[in-house]
């Protein structure tokens, strides 16, 4: 249960950063937090009371393992999150080069 709460909390924090932090790097951090929250959510979805890691070595019975599928999904999502973060940061480097600021209020040459 605590995992659910943590997951929801991470997502909420991420959104909080996105909505209220002006600094773009902080916004990207928010995105990362959200990603983590989602990952946690996925993993905790697959948890079974008393389950263990889904590696059927050393006599682990299939009945005892947690759902492996969410974990596989998380694996994928982690990489995607990393990719997005990397790309976002590199774009931010260029934003900074052009605008000399990372304040999202000021990066709005294009509007309406």
């Amino acid at each position, binding site marked *: *249960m605590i*995992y*659910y*709460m943590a*997951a*929801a*909390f991470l*997502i*909420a924090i991420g*959104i*909080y950063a996105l*909505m*209220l932090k002006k600094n773009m790097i902080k916004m990207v951090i928010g995105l990362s937090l959200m990603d983590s929250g989602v990952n946690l*959510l996925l993993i*905790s*979805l*697959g*948890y*079974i*009371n008393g389950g263990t*890691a*889904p*590696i*059927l*070595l050393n006599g682990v019975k*299939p009945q005892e*393992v947690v*759902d*492996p*599928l969410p*974990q*596989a*999904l998380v*694996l*994928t999502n*982690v*990489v*995607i999150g*990393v*990719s*997005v973060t*990397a*790309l976002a*940061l*590199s*774009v931010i*480097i*260029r934003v900074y*080069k052009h605008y000399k600021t990372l304040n999202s209020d000021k990066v709005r040459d294009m509007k309406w």
Partner: protein
Amino acid sequence: MIKKSIALILIAILFVAIFFTLANDLPFGDNRTTTGVSDKYIYHGVNDTGASNLVTAIVVNYRGFDTLGEVTVLFVAATGVGAVLYNMGRPAGKKRKKTEASLIVRTGSRILFPMMLLFGAYIFVHGHLTPGGGFQGGAVIATAFLFKYVSDTRYHIDHNKFTATESVVGMTFALVGIMGLLLTGYFLFNFLPNGSPGELLSAGIIPIIYVAIGIKVGAELTGILDNMMEVEQ
């Protein structure tokens, strides 16, 4: 102020919604696998794929296509970072404007670098047996290169070699898939024998793919790091 309170209200709504939906409708720790597809993975996974690490079985075999996509995502991102930061790097041979690392770091990195590479390789080679896999191994390899960057302000990778490596291993993954298609009519089909679970050389194409992924991820992440490090401030 209004903005902030709106934001907080919205966040609260989201939080409550996500949390209570989960808590009410998906009680934590309930065994739901009997209703879904996971049963198949859990009970037949080892036989089907030969990988005792079920996550790996899923990642590389059952849902190998996702992984191909995932690799592509990383590849796209690496290419994207390259494209985004194109022409922003320092001129060749010029030092990065960073303070020199201390002697301890330099020496330590020199010692640790091959060990980290080896560790990374271990992780992805044993991906089908133990926790971990190509991505994790690749990340470790990239960390090794990061070490290099941190310790040596002049250090930079040979782009051509990295690109070639990346290409080759990437193509390997794609080729494995295409070969599966050619041999059996199914893309990414496991056309190699499964072997006996628990052994290193088992689980069909999984080790090949994980090796490819490991090298590729390592190269890509290093490339990303390189691109970012090289940006002239």
